[in-house]
């Protein structure tokens, strides 16, 4: 099954989006956003996979041995760092919202301000 990793990435993305759309709590929404972002990790690593390739680390492994793409792995690292910073900012904002208007429900925030 050569498309399975891509389907998994697509599924994680869609299930996270579904969570965001139906969310009734800002912290739940932030976690769903990280689920959606996780799909990009799976996608990046799947794109860089080479059939039969080992990790791109040549300690005790001869140079020239088939290895997977190191570029997408470093991009995944960047991706994770950005995900964490965004999550931290959203949680801080959620806490601010809660102390202002005593609710975590995104729909009620709109009602109160409209």
């Amino acid at each position, binding site marked *: 099954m050569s498309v399975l990793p891509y389907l998994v990435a697509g599924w994680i993305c869609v299930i996270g989006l579904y969570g965001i759309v139906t969310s009734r709590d800002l912290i739940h929404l932030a976690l769903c956003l990280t689920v959606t972002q996780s799909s990009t990790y799976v996608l990046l690593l799947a794109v860089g*996979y080479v059939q039969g390739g080992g990790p*791109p*680390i040549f*300690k005790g492994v001869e*140079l020239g041995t088939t290895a997977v793409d190191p570029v997408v792995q470093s991009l995944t690292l960047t991706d994770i760092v950005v995900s964490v910073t965004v999550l931290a900012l959203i949680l*801080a904002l959620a806490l*601010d919202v809660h102390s202002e208007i005593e609710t975590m429900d995104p729909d009620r925030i709109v009602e109160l301000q409209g």
Partner: protein
Amino acid sequence: MFLPSVALLAALLTWSLVAIPHFGHYRGPYGFVLNRVVLPERHMTNVVTATVFDYRGFDTMGEEFILFIAVTGVVLLLREQDRDESSDSEDEIGSDAVRVGGSLAVGVCLLVALWLIAFGFVTPGGGFQGGVALASSLVLVFLVASHKAWSGIASEEVLDPFEGVGAGGYVVVGLAALIGGMAFLTNLLGPGTPGTLYSGGSAPFVNWAAGTEVAAAFLILFMEFIEAYVVPLA
């Protein structure tokens, strides 16, 4: 509104799946080139770390400052909250098993974290991964000891210098190359011996700078959130 959106999204995803290379048939060329040239050129055996801190070093500097700015933002957002100063009196962990086992775990995690950073360009690891592990090992102190023990580590006086040195050290290594008449972040000091700590030129310094910055940034985040979320509940 819901069904048309789902149909559109499904169409877009299917369209992108059709054009993507088959799984396991990576086309290159950058990955193949890096896997070939990193060891001869830089004597670093971990190609991912070499990519992050050398070949893509400038991007990683930007990434480090994303983290730096986000932490600054969180500190600014949460500083208005009222802090209950009296809450750190009676929060000692009662169970001896938790205290002893936990304290041992702190030491083990700390060693693993330092190994991940120090050997990040030789074996699996790196400044970012090790930095997160380092921060987690110190957060364990909060879980197994008292809030008082934790606030000895997690104070602005302790953490802010580390975060500044981590973020600034990265730039200083880059500027050192500039002073030497080369491009910003050019790898200095010669490649060294492959597979040892003495390899990779100036990349290990950048690696340590990133590790320090990430560990301090995560500890500041934990500190702010523990003060804002957990302490009011205790």
